[in-house]
């Protein structure tokens, strides 16, 4: 892809680095976590040096992810408040998935789907982090009743979050010209105008 001086800056280098720290942590946590969740995935512990190492590392990687995720939340929360047009977008998302985005309401930097995904991730991260602390026997010892609740919450929230990330990744692949925003920060003007017209207007001063 040729970089064009007319391209629009969507993410700063620091935002991108932040995103990928969280992304790498997520992949490592999902792989080791699935290994503990279902016997079919247990061999994945070999990526971490065996079962015991996977058990040792998983919570520490979780701490790193939680901290960097918190920074992302601080950075992006205000851009993700749901407005009227976002709900309208969500209502019409079926048309878009079906291949017709002509009737989609004009969106700002993030569309309704992205905003809901953001809050879904915030919710799951909150549940996963809190329940993960309760399950972390190396440092904490909670009552068995609390741990029993925590393991279910941890597994359910993690499965939900992995599902959300599947959607997140697929949406980025499906919507051509998107991934570069998180790789080197820019998107084309045409991309911006098509998918995030209000953001395009505010970035370029274009009235159309």
């Amino acid at each position: 892809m040729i970089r064009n001086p007319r391209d629009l800056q969507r993410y700063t280098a620091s935002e991108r680095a932040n995103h990928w720290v969280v992304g790498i942590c997520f992949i490592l946590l999902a792989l080791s976590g699935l290994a503990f969740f279902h016997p079919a995935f247990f061999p994945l512990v070999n990526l971490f040096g065996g079962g015991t190492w996977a058990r040792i590392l998983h919570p520490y990687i979780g701490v790193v992810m939680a901290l960097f995720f918190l920074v992302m939340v601080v950075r992006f929360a205000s851009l993700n408040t749901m407005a009227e047009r976002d709900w309208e977008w969500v209502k019409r998302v079926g048309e878009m998935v079906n291949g017709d985005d002509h009737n989609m309401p004009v969106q700002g930097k993030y569309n309704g789907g992205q905003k809901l995904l953001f809050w879904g991730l915030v919710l799951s991260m909150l549940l996963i982090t809190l329940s993960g602390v309760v399950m972390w026997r190396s440092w904490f010892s909670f009552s068995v009743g609390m741990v029993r609740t925590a393991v279910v919450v941890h597994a359910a929230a993690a499965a939900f979050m992995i599902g959300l990330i599947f959607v997140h990744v697929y949406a980025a692949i499906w919507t051509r010209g998107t991934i570069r925003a998180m790789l080197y920060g820019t998107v084309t003007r045409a991309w911006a105008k098509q998918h995030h017209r209000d953001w395009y207007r505010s970035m370029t001063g274009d009235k159309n």
Partner: protein
Amino acid sequence: MALQSLDIQRRSATTTPAPQARETTEIAKLIDVSACIGCKACQAACMEWNDVRDEVGNCTGVYDNPVDLTENSWTVMRFAEVEENGKLEWLIRKDGCMHCEDPGCLKACPSPGAIIQYSNGIVDFHQENCIGCGYCVTGCPFNVPRISKKDNKAYKCTLCSDRVAVGQAPACAKVCPTGAIQFGSKADMKDYADKRITDLKSRGYQQAGLYDPQGVGGTHVMYVLHHADRPQLYNNLPADPSISPTVALWKGVAKPLAMAALGLTALGSLFHYVMKGPNEVSKELEDEMERQAEAETEGERENAR
């Protein structure tokens, strides 16, 4: 492989059947609480046979010593003083793994082969496969497994599986001076318990009975209790133990459900791409931006002139 490996009935985190060629007799240890004098010979024998030594602790004002099960104390006498019919009763229960028919520890364990159930009913931890996550502690309805602070492995009573495998009784049963700990086939132990219960009833313990809780499918360590209607009297022995519903949910239906949901999401995405195609930026917009760019360079050239 030793023949013992053929005696496996169930293996943690394993979804295919275990080898089932050999069938061994279902065994049980019967602890007759009414005959226990609290001498702790069983604790000493357990330490000796299994080569485990706990730290010498401090007196906490009760006879319990050590005060709790640990990675080095696989059995502990728990002393309860209760008043029944205006008389003091000293209820002494030898606590330790109950060797459940439906073991919560094994259900919860994520590591293949770290917890084994032999066809004779013994539930054994194989520490070389243990990853130290503590899920067995979460799964156990009797609060038995202990994680070592030294090596992070889980430990508990093995019911002397090594002795039983060669036709010997567990060390604690062998050493008990009053016959309060009996060992044999589960059927024989039930018969023996019946005799003890009849005797206890004739002595005025109308509620005497056998503790073989069906909530966990029965156990391979059973108690004869003088107050079988109130097991809680015996240092909170659970009245109706079963695998916690949250653990059953977590290691039961949640697994296939989550896998199906994630698998469908991933496959759905792939097939959506294949069938609907990518969401490209429209040609008109691309052209419009092209024209804008040209107009801009044109304008710059104009200015330069």
